[in-house]
């Protein structure tokens, strides 16, 4: 007796998905036969907005493109403007930028812990890790003035210098987080429920991963060591000492392990940066923003964010406002083409699990 296939809408209002998007499934029994994604519920038209604002006003709206992790956006925008104009950034500003990016990376990984274990039904992990993430947001509040949207890294350097007592507070937070990582291991990674659910689910083929456009932790979870900080280095990453973890397997379990090892590398990077920071200026002053023009040209810059490779393509025509800014986030490929291929043959109950593990974040798919 053949089963009939039904259509299910895992729609915009759902407690399990990672944002405001819809996945339309054709299901036979409990197995998925075909999947289709619908996006566009969060479209604001950022690129059209930036054509009406001048170079400094556009920097203030850029951080809201990616909601969980706003700092790589500001970094990309500033580096693209500096590359087209040819502006130099002082050494101290580069070190402060690296520290800000690594703190944002740790905060995003702690939020990911909550999402991934919450979609498997293990809800205590989210209470612990999101509660500890507040300590990093306290550091950001001392440094920049805001918890979530900072507007701190701008073309020419950073906006303010480190306040007094920041270094001791940051080192204390890093020591506390390193002790808590062992507690998270006992709660999540040694839990047999999580292991049975995560092993063998959502497998990406290693030989086709690069051709399909997979980037970031999903690519490192297939066994390929690829990281923009080592391949196309920017700021002062070529002077700092860190490793890029990669493991074979390609399923949800190895991706979770890769992220777990990267938190430790980021904590070491923050300690190195605070140790090696030179003195000097923190800002290369820009002229009057209402009359600041940039010569004609274009540039493409990349940054490694917590979910993959973030790219900006910027074109200038010699005027006061940008001609075209095109933002490409890591979830543009992971959330549409890759998700539609990985979901075929899986259980309906694993849809939210796989979405969390790939890191789909709808605000950056449709800007």
């Amino acid at each position, binding site marked *: 007796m053949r089963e009939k296939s039904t259509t299910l809408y895992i729609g915009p209002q759902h407690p399990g998905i990672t944002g405001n998007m819809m996945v339309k499934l054709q299901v036979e029994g409990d197995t998925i036969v075909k999947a289709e994604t619908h996006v*566009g519920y969060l479209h604001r*038209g950022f690129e059209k907005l930036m054509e009406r604002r001048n170079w400094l006003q556009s920097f203030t709206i850029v951080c809201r493109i990616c909601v969980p992790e706003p700092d790589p956006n500001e970094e990309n925008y500033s580096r693209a403007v500096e590359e087209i104009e040819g502006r130099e950034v002082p050494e101290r500003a580069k070190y402060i930028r690296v520290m800000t990016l690594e703190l944002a990376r740790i905060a995003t990984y702690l939020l990911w812990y909550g999402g991934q274990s919450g979609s498997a039904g293990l809800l205590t992990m989210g209470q612990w890790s999101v509660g500890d993430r507040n300590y990093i947001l306290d550091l950001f509040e001392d440094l920049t003035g805001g918890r979530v949207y900072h507007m701190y890294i701008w073309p020419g350097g950073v906006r303010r210098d480190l306040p007094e007592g920041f270094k001791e507070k940051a080192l204390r937070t890093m020591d506390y987080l390193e002790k808590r990582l062992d507690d998270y291991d006992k709660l999540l990674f040694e839990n047999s429920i999580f292991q049975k659910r995560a092993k063998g689910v959502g497998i990406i083929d290693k030989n086709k991963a690069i051709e399909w456009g997979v980037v970031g932790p999903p690519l490192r979870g297939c066994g390929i060591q690829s990281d923009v900080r080592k391949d196309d280095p920017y700021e002062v990453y070529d002077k700092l000492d860190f490793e890029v973890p990669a493991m074979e397997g390609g399923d949800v379990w190895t991706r979770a392990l890769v992220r777990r090892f990267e938190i430790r590398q980021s904590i070491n990077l923050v300690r190195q940066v605070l140790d090696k920071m030179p003195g000097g200026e923190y800002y290369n002053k820009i002229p009057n923003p209402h009359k600041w023009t940039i010569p004609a040209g274009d540039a493409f810059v990349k940054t490694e964010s917590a979910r993959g*490779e973030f790219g900006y*393509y910027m074109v200038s025509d010699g005027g006061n406002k940008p001609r075209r800014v095109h933002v490409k986030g890591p979830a543009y490929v992971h959330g549409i083409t890759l998700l539609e291929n990985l979901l075929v043959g899986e259980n309906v109950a694993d849809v939210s699990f796989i979405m969390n593990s790939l890191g789909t974040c709808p605000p950056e798919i*449709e800007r």
Partner: protein
Amino acid sequence: MSENNLHNEQKLLNLLEKKFILKGGSVRRERRVEVKVEPKEIVPVLLYAKENSGYTAFTHMSCVDWIEDGEFEVVYILWHPEEKINFFVKTRVSRDNGTLPNIDFIWRQANTYEREIREMFGIQFEGLVGREEFILEDWEHMPPMRRDFDTVKFVEKTYFERPGREDAKDVREYVQERTDEELPDFAKKYSRD
């Protein structure tokens, strides 16, 4: 950054200049190579770069509206995973009913980029299969990313005016009206004139 450091980038340019007709090409800096072609040469150049030269990763595809020349400029960006070089391929197509070849048989994720460019700019791709609506729903006006689409007029016609902004003026005039304070010197020097 001496000359022999850019040896790998120059190698690709030399190979391409022998086989195809290029409209221009240069090495911009380390890890960035650029080439300009006609629309009918896009598929041969991209296939050659993927299969013979090892540029297997498709990073990005974008479109710029040059309304003064009456053309759209479409840019393809590729990446070589071992030699770590970015490769730009640029082409120009006309603004009225321009068409470009479809490349999603080479890389599957190009389907999404082409659907977005078709919706936002209005360029047609030959043989592109995919739903017409990608981001916008029930949109009956001009493709919105073109430069002759005026967003402020559209917003004033469709949505309600936001309250509290009718009498927005420069804060210096405000201060001088409400008090008899003399503005300090540093406040007078800032100018937007």
